[in-house]
């Protein structure tokens, strides 16, 4: 399991830019990102190469940072790649709360960030099925 940082932002011009700027100044690299929004506000979720340093920088600028653990799954980059993961979880009744793909592609696979209602069981199931899960060190090394 890896660390995800999420930031609560109001849905108005310049807010995402300000967060991106804060991370840039701290020399942080973004590995994956997703934005979920409503009319008035949104949540930006990040997978970062150095989460600890990033968190410090964000807190210093007054952002509310929500830290959670998520799964980073190495998914074969071919038709049916995503389906192989999702159908496995579906069969076991594990609900996916949200998921998004990494901005980086590995050689023959992609990274899928998954939030599920039962992380322990999901990671055990995926490993059992021969699907690789990335560690924090993997994310840093990409």
């Amino acid at each position, binding site marked *: 399991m890896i660390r*995800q940082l*999420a930031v*609560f*932002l*109001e849905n108005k011009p310049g*807010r995402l830019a300000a967060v991106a700027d804060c991370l840039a100044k701290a020399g942080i690299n973004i590995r994956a990102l997703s934005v*979920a929004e*409503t009319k*008035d*506000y949104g*949540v930006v*979720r990040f997978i970062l190469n150095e989460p600890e340093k990033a968190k410090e920088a964000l807190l210093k600028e*007054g*952002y*509310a940072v*929500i830290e*959670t653990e998520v799964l980073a799954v190495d998914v074969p980059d071919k038709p049916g790649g995503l389906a192989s993961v999702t159908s496995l979880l579906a069969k076991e009744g594990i609900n996916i*709360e*949200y998921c998004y793909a990494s901005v980086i592609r590995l050689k023959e696979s992609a990274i899928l960030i998954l*939030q599920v209602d039962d992380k322990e069981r999901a990671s055990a199931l995926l490993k059992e099925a021969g699907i690789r899960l990335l560690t924090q060190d993997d994310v840093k090394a990409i």
Partner: protein
Amino acid sequence: MNQFYSEEEGLSREELKNLQSGRLKAIVNYVYERMPFYRKRFDSLGIKPEDIKDISDIKKLPFTTKQDIVDNYPLKLLAVPMKEVVRLQSSSGTTGKNIFIPYTKNDIELWSDVMARSLWEAGVREDDIIQISYGYGLFTGGLGFHQGAEKIGATIIPASSGNTRRQIQIMQDLGTTIICCTPSYALYMAEVGNEMGVDFASLSLRVGIFGAEPWSEEMRKEIEKKMHIDAINIYGLCEIIGPGVASECLHKEGMHINEDVFYPEIINPQTGERLPPGEKGELVLTTLTKEALPLIRYRTRDICSINPEPCKCGRSFSRLSRIEGRADDMIIVRGINVFPSQIESVLLSVGGVAPYYEIIVDREKGRLDTLELRVEVSESFLSDEMRSLEELRQRLEEALESALDISVNLTLAEQGSIPRSEGKAKRVIDKREIFQRKGGERK
């Protein structure tokens, strides 16, 4: 005298003063005998009912505030046995709970009478068709007008508020001659009527009686022009009786205060000192004849002035100016009173948000007032899942709507985004231009 609804309206100032003096002595005795709240307060100040000999002695008496009513929630201030109470109406309190005001049969009769006077002086007669578009229910608007119109014998259409297209349809089809609602709702009706292609000049509509929220002379002109009517200003508050405390005649030069039953004073809201006629200050009212909950020197927190000069219409009652502001932070949205403290107590009871919030009241031209609330989500409630944030937002919105009786548009704000002044947020931003600005001064 046929020109007035009640003969009291035509009393000379001397006769009026005698009547007020007699009634003040009686009500002071009454509250001292029947209400432990007043007895304790008078005793602690060393005031005996005998000390009150005529109306000028009223200044010896202590003030009563809304907080006193809130502190005695729900009905600890009753001066009669509950079986004599025939009605309860309510108004917003300063916390999440509303306050309740009790009425005896005679109180309802008094209310009907002052409302009949108000409607009569605006020209309402028994052959009029009066459409009452104030909300019916706990709010005093709907029933107050209803009772007065019924007393006169006019034909009442109890339309209540909302469903604006139907309101206009009714106006057209039934030939409404008198419309009663909040002034902002009148403007909204005019706007919707326009969209429907209604020519107001061709309707039977003659007079509109508007109140429950502050408005300006500019708004009066706008309503009169758009609806082709005379727009009349009326004033009242639930604690005293409801609408009907003061109201304009067709000369439209200030609201005649029903002084024979509600004694008015203007004070400096900081010092409590009485101000001479014509000076602007806080209106204080004493109910001279009310039975269930008489109030002595009740501080309305409304800022206005009193003109003692007799009116062209011949009524001797002094006249109240427009309400020009508030001595506290109460805001009035679509005729409903809202205290920031009410909002705060709802937020705290639901939880999940930081104590930083901002209330934004706005009125786009020709639209109804909107109440927007921005609150900062507390750190412990922040989530990376939209579902739980949306749930929190909805829960807050529902709790606020049920406490305030008005729809609220709640938005979740980023931490630190609401401006703080001395650690506390600046709470209310009122973008409506209701109060006339003089020399750059603004409420």
